[in-house]
C-alpha cells in the first residue's frame, strides 16, 4: 500500500496513515502503540500495513489497558522517545484520563520545567454511526479545558495529513481527535507532506453576514448549510477552529467584527461544550460588535440513542444550522 506524497486523491484514513508512515520513517524515536494497531490494522484500518513495514516493536499492539499504555506513552516520552499512542476511541479514553490530566498535562509545570512530555495521543471521536451511548461521545471540547494540552481536530484531508508532524515536534502533549465519519472522505491535496500550522483557525469559506464557527466532524455539515444560506441570500463565513486548545481568538474576533453575528456548531453536548467557551470569548472580546445573540447548534443533552431517527435528531444538522443563522441575521438587524 503506498499512500502520499505523490498521490493526488487521498482519503482521510490514507492521509493519517501517510502522516504516520512519514513520521515512522523519519525519526526512529517515533513508534505507534495502541489496541489492535498492528495485526488487526487499526480498528478503523488507519494503520493497515504499518506492522509489515515497521515491525511489531514500533507498531505495538497493546492489551486492553488504557491507563497502562497511555501512561507508558508518557513515560516513554519522558525518556526521550516520540510515542504516538492510539486510543481506539475517545469513549475509552476516560479510563486513561488520570494519566492524561494528572501526568501528561501536569509534569512539566510540577517539575519546574524539567520534564517535557512530547507525546501524541490520537483518538477517534464522534457519533453518527448508530453506535449508541457508550460509543458516540464527542469529548474533544471537554479535553480542551485542560491546561498543558494542545488539542487538535483535523477536519480536512490536508489537516489529517499535515497535523501529525508538527504535533510530534511539539515538546508538549498533543491530542489529535479524528472524527469517525471522516475516514472515508477523500480530497486531493497539493503535496501530502506539506506541513500545516497547529496554532490557528482557518476561514474555510469567506462571508459577510454571519460567522459560523465549527470544527472536526461538523465542518462539512456547516459548509452544506452555508450553500443553502447562499441560496437564501445570506453570506455565511465558515470558520474551522482546527485547534481547540489553545483557541485562536484573533481569527474569531476578526470575523465577528466583520459579520456582527455568530453561530457556533459543536457536536458536543450543549452545556459546557466548547461552544460555551467561544461564546464567552466573543462576549469578552467583541461584545460591542455583536448585533444579535450568539446562536449555538450542539448535540442534544442525551446519551446517544441507537435508533437512527433519534440519533439524527440529537445531532447538529444542516437545517438546524441554517435556521440558527437565519435567526441570527433576522434578529435585531
Amino acid at each position, binding site marked *: 500500500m503506498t499512500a502520499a506524497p505523490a498521490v493526488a486523491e487521498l482519503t482521510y484514513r490514507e492521509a493519517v496513515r501517510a502522516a504516520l508512515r512519514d513520521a515512522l520513517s523519519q525519526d526512529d524515536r517515533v513508534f505507534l502503540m495502541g*489496541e*489492535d494497531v*498492528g*495485526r*488487526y*490494522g487499526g*480498528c478503523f484500518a488507519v494503520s493497515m500495513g504499518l506492522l509489515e513495514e515497521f515491525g511489531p516493536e514500533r507498531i505495538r*499492539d497493546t*492489551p*486492553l*489497558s*488504557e*491507563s*497502562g499504555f497511555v501512561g507508558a506513552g508518557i513515560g516513554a516520552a519522558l525518556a526521550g522517545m516520540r510515542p504516538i499512542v492510539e486510543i481506539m476511541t475517545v*469513549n*475509552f479514553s476516560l*479510563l486513561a484520563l488520570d494519566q492524561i490530566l494528572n501526568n501528561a498535562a501536569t509534569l512539566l509545570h510540577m517539575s519546574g520545567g524539567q520534564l517535557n512530555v512530547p507525546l501524541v495521543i490520537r483518538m477517534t471521536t464522534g457519533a453518527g*454511526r*448508530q*453506535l*449508541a*451511548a*457508550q*460509543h458516540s461521545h464527542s469529548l474533544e471540547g471537554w479535553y480542551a479545558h485542560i491546561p498543558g494540552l494542545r488539542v487538535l481536530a483535523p477536519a480536512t484531508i490536508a489537516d489529517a495529513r499535515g497535523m501529525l508532524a508538527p504535533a510530534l515536534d511539539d515538546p508538549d502533549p498533543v491530542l489529535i481527535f479524528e472524527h469517525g465519519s471522516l475516514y472515508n472522505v477523500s480530497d486531493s491535496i497539493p503535496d501530502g507532506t506539506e506541513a500545516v500550522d497547529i496554532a490557528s483557525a482557518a476561514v474555510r469559506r469567506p462571508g459577510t453576514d454571519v460567522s459560523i464557527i465549527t470544527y472536526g466532524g461538523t465542518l462539512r455539515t456547516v459548509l452544506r448549510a452555508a450553500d443553502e444560506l447562499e441560496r437564501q441570500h445570506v453570506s455565511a463565513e465558515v470558520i474551522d477552529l482546527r485547534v481547540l486548545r489553545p483557541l485562536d481568538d484573533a481569527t474569531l474576533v476578526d470575523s465577528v467584527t466583520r459579520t456582527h453575528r455568530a453561530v457556533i456548531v459543536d457536536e458536543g453536548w450543549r452545556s459546557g461544550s466548547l461552544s460555551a467557551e467561544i461564546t464567552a470569548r466573543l462576549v469578552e472580546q467583541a461584545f460591542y460588535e455583536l448585533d444579535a445573540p450568539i446562536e449555538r447548534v450542539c448535540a*442534544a*443533552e*442525551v*446519551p446517544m*440513542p*441507537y*435508533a*437512527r*431517527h*433519534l440519533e439524527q*435528531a*440529537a445531532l447538529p444538522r444542516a437545517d438546524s444550522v441554517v435556521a440558527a443563522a437565519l435567526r441570527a441575521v433576522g434578529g435585531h438587524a
Partner: protein
Amino acid sequence: MTATTKRSARTKRSREHPQRTPGPADGCELYRQMLRIRRFEEKCVELYSAEKIRGFMHLCIGEEAVAVGVMQALADDDAVVATYREHGQALARGMSMSTVLAEMFGRVTGCSRGRGGSMHLFDSSLRFYGGNAIVGGGLPLAVGFALAEKMRGSNRVTACVFGDGAVAEGEFHESANLAALWQLPIAFFCENNRYAMGTALEREHAQTDLALRAASYGMVAWSVDGMDVMPVADAARRAVELVRDNGGPCFVELHTYRFRAHSMYDPDRYRDKAEIAQWRTRDPLPALAHRLRADGALSDADLNRMETEIEAEITAAVEEAEAAPLEAVEDLTRFVYSDRGAQP
C-alpha cells in the same frame, strides 16, 4: 448484622432454593436453546447485510455452549451482568426473540426502546443487566449487585460474564480483589475465546492461564471446555452452588472460540484460516446432537420440530420488528433523568 449471621442466613435459604440441575433429560433442551441462538444470529447476519440492523453487532456463533450452559445454572432471582456480545445470553436467560430483534431494529418495542441496540440488551424483569460495551465496565457493577445481596442477606447470586481481553483491564483486578476481599456472592464467567478483537491471548497476557490468575486473588477458580455444553452446564451449576452456599466469589474460565469475526466491521485478517477450521470441528451443536441421537434422546423428528419451531419464532420476530413503531422523536431526551413517577 455480621457476616456470619448473613452467611448462615444465606445457607439456610439456599437449601430451600430450587436447584435446577440439568440431567441427561435436559440435553435436548440445552441443544434446542443453542440451536435457537445459532439460528437467530444467522438471521441477524442476513438482517445486518440488509441494513435492518446497524451499528456494532457481535455474534456468539461458536460460543453458544457458554451462553446456554451458564444461564441454565441460574435461578430466576439471580442477576446477570454481561457484555456487548450478549445475544445468546439474553435469549438463554429467557428474553424473547422479538424484544431483542425489535431492539436491533431500533423500535420502541425493543427491550431498550431502541435506544440501546445490539450492544445494550436489558431486561430488568429477568434481572438481565446485559449489554455493557465498555470492556471490563460491567465487572464493578456486578460486584455492586453482589454487595447489595450480601448486605441484605439474600441468597441471590450475581453472574458476571466477560471476555479474556477484559481480564487485562484494571477494572478486572479491582473487581476481583473486592469480590474476594469482601467475600461477595458473585460467579465470574470468563469467556476465553482466545482473542480480544485482533489481539491473540498470548499478546494480551503475560500469564495466559486466566483461572490461575484469578486464583491469585484467593478465590476458587478453574477452567472448562467451553465447546461442550454439558461440562459448561455442570461447571456453572457447581460454581453457582458454591457461591450460593459459601457466599464468596468463584471464577470459571470457559475455553471457547468465535467462529465469526469480532464484529460485522471486522475483516478477520489476524486469524489463521486453519485455526478457525480446527475449532469449527468442535462446534458445540453437531457434537451434542450426535450424542443425543446415539443415546436415543433425540430423533430426526424432534430435530425437525425444533428447527420448524425456531424458524417460526424467528419469522414472527422479524415480522413484528418490521411492523413495530419507532420511539417518537419528541421523546428523544426522555430517560436522561427519571420521570419522578418512574422511581423504583
